[in-house]
């Protein structure tokens, strides 16, 4: 009975590994100076804001929708500040000029609200607010990672305060002054549900702050606490969902991180748009790794100028394991950006690197002297650190895999073109954490192969489905004709 009253639920994890990168963001939040121009990318990891809602040179207010993504329940791209729209100034961006902080749109217009209330009822209003005020974009489905349907009913909700990949915005930094907002956000979330549980994933550490959160949550009967060891990627939503015994076929699972809960609170308590982001900036080549308070569209150039001193560095949108390098084309922070990680490019080739004792390089294996020493943060580069070789069946990839699949096996199936066997080996369970690629001593990019195979199988399945639909339609038509 106990766990219904907020007691911690124990779950078992497997695999996982922490890469300790130098330049961990500290726990402060610095406010960046107000920008003059904003560059809002029209594409992010999940969204493609293809339907533009504003005209060239139009004056918009903060909170106005600039564009929306018709494939993702019309999730809007909000103007974070007021300004003048330029559509053609930069490819794939909406540029806001003469940006000012003033006249933020305070509320959704009365008239609009009453219309929605008539259409969808009280619960519908809340969901409409979440979507139109930019809070819904923080929601994920556990298994598909896509944006869940805002009007749908989930089988469960997973809230995670962890961010274990080096480096993305730390959950504790977001929570520091907003613990009340967080718990209020959880209450709002609960009000959207009927009886479905909310699982709250928390670090299994015993700090004062963690205890404070625990005592706050303990009062909620509907929130089940989940203590998660701080090992990457145990904060992955799919891993959490699977470890909780939730199943794909029982409906969507809403997943949201700390920033999402705070956005829910802002949207539903204040009815204000969520346009401010806290983004981590960390890694090697960063002056003082920290967190930045910015708005989407903030010029990346400005941040690099201010924080990055390494000239030949790769600037990554997200962490070093799953993030994507910013291209020259991207000018501003995207709506889904959670952190900026800087990693120096490999410059010098190492002389007789393989026989060095390796006191200063930490490895998943124990083949370096550093295994006699406590784990330490290392200066990584983008070097592959070895030559591509055939798989030697060392089994490291299976050991480290948090999803419990056998990457080497799927690699061998792919080598022999056995896609069906790869499907049998459950390549679809891969959570794309990238650890198998990281540990492979033969330097095989297993992660990429798994992701590509997943996509291929998914595509084939879709084609088969469409083919079936087409045949059925053809049959119906021919039946109609004979009638």
């Amino acid at each position, binding site marked *: 009975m106990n766990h219904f009253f907020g007691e911690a639920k124990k779950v078992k994890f497997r695999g996982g590994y922490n890469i300790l990168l130098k330049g961990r963001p500290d726990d402060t939040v610095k406010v960046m100076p107000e920008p003059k121009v904003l560059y809002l990318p029209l594409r992010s990891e999940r969204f493609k804001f293809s339907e533009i809602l504003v005209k060239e040179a139009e004056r918009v207010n903060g909170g106005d929708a600039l564009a929306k993504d018709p494939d993702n329940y019309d999730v809007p791209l909000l103007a974070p500040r007021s300004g003048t729209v330029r559509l053609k100034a930069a490819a794939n961006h909406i540029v806001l000029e003469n940006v000012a902080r003033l006249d933020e749109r305070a509320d959704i217009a009365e008239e609009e609200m009453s219309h929605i209330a008539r259409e969808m009822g009280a619960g519908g209003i809340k969901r409409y607010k979440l979507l139109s005020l930019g809070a819904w974009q923080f929601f994920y489905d556990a298994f598909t990672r896509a944006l869940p349907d805002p009007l749908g009913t989930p089988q469960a909700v997973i809230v995670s305060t962890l961010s274990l990949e080096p480096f993305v915005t730390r959950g504790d930094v977001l929570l520091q002054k907003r613990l009340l907002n967080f718990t209020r956000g959880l209450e709002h979330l609960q009000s959207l549900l009927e009886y479905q549980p909310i699982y709250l994933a928390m670090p299994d550490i015993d700090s004062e702050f963690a205890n404070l959160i625990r005592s706050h949550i303990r009062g909620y009967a509907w929130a089940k606490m989940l203590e998660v060891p701080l090992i990457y990627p145990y904060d992955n939503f799919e891993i959490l969902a699977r470890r909780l015994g939730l199943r794909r076929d029982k409906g969507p699972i809403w997943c949201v991180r700390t920033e999402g809960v705070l956005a829910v609170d802002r949207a539903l308590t204040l009815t204000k748009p969520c346009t401010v982001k806290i983004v981590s900036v960390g890694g090697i080549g960063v002056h003082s790794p920290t967190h930045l308070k910015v708005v989407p569209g903030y010029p990346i150039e400005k941040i690099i100028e201010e924080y990055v001193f390494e000239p030949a560095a790769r600037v990554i949108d997200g962490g070093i394991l799953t993030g994507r390098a910013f291209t020259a084309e991207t000018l501003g922070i995207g709506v889904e950006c959670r952190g900026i990680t800087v990693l120096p490019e490999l410059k010098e080739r190492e*002389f007789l690197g393989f026989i060095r004792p390796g006191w200063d390089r930490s490895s998943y294996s124990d083949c370096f002297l550093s295994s006699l020493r406590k784990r330490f943060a290392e200066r990584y580069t*983008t070097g592959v650190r070895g030559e591509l070789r055939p798989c030697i069946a060392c*089994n490291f990839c*299976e050991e480290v895999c948090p999803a419990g699949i056998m990457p080497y096996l799927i690699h061998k199936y792919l080598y022999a073109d056995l896609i069906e066997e790869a499907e049998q080996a459950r390549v679809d*369970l891969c959570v794309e954490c990238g650890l198998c690629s990281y540990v492979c001593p033969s330097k095989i990019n297993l992660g990429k192969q798994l992701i590509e195979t997943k996509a291929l199988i998914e595509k084939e399945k879709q084609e088969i489905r469409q083919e079936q639909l087409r045949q059925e339609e053809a049959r119906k038509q021919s039946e109609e004709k004979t009638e």
Partner: protein
Amino acid sequence: MKWLLKVIDAARPTFEEGGKLRILNPVFGALEHFFFAPSTRTIGAPHVRDPLDLKRVMSMVIISVVPCVLAAFYLFGLRFLAMIIVTYAAGLTVEAIFAIVRKEGINEGFFVTGFLFPLILPPNLPLWMVALGVAFGVFIAKELFGGTGRNIFNPALVGRCFLSLGFPKVMSASWAQPGHGLVGNMLTWNVDTLTSATPLAAAKQGEITSFVHMFLGNISGSAGETSAFLIILGGVFLLFTRVANWRSVASILGSFAILAGVLMARGEMSEPMPTIFGSVLWHVFAGGLLFGAFFMATDPVTGPTTNAGKWFYGIIIGSTTVLIRNFTGYVEGVTFAILLGNIVAPILDEIVIGVRIRRLRREG
């Protein structure tokens, strides 16, 4: 070391497409990458990689057999060094020819085979046989199967097996008198050939070699298998680095000891020592069992990949060794046992993977 990199960079065009020596590109590449780590960078996620590469893995194996190599040099003289050189020359030639024909790089795998092969041979074997054996092993057991990572059998063991089947008389009459004293045989080329052979062969005739000698290594036997102490030393290092998996070692030695103990208790197997426990330990130290268990059976490529498979693999090798040693005409059976294990390994993997996939099917 900038000058060396400059030399290599200057020489590169000669070996690349269109250069005069492009046919030797794999050899050049192997040399280049021996000295300098490659300049490849990651593309996309994940952006960083672990420092471990195959060169490092292979160096760990070589470091772990260094004590055995030095001991073999001390005990069996300069000829042993010549055996290493001949092995390398013959094996690398086969390896390089295949790399050139396949237009692939030369793999690190051979550098380990080149050290292990002389260690499992009788120390007074004619050098041409050493060359023939390693060439056969690399050619038949490795390259024909597709090179490093794709071979089913351990190339060094196939080479040895070939020699002991093809030249049984020479193989069983090439044991050498181990050296002793301060310099041992380190300055001797022609070490006296020993006709009364290894402890195992002697034991069949009722002569029991002292346990202490077998532990220290001044006994007759294959070049690297004589000193139980040094093999355990190197083997434990290999286990510590996790290059060798402890599961196969534990199950080989465990199953060997248990089966040997049971057979002795039932009186089916001779007891070289007064107690069964001592006798079992004597048998573990005798012959190539320790060397095979630590350095041969732990080869990840030819053994099973799955952890459960490794347990069964070890049991097959350990018990087959006991059976061959005790119930056949052969005095030693580790080579055959490990090769048998190599055959069974893919089947074991298939069974374990089948079970795991069935379990995975139930996942959400």
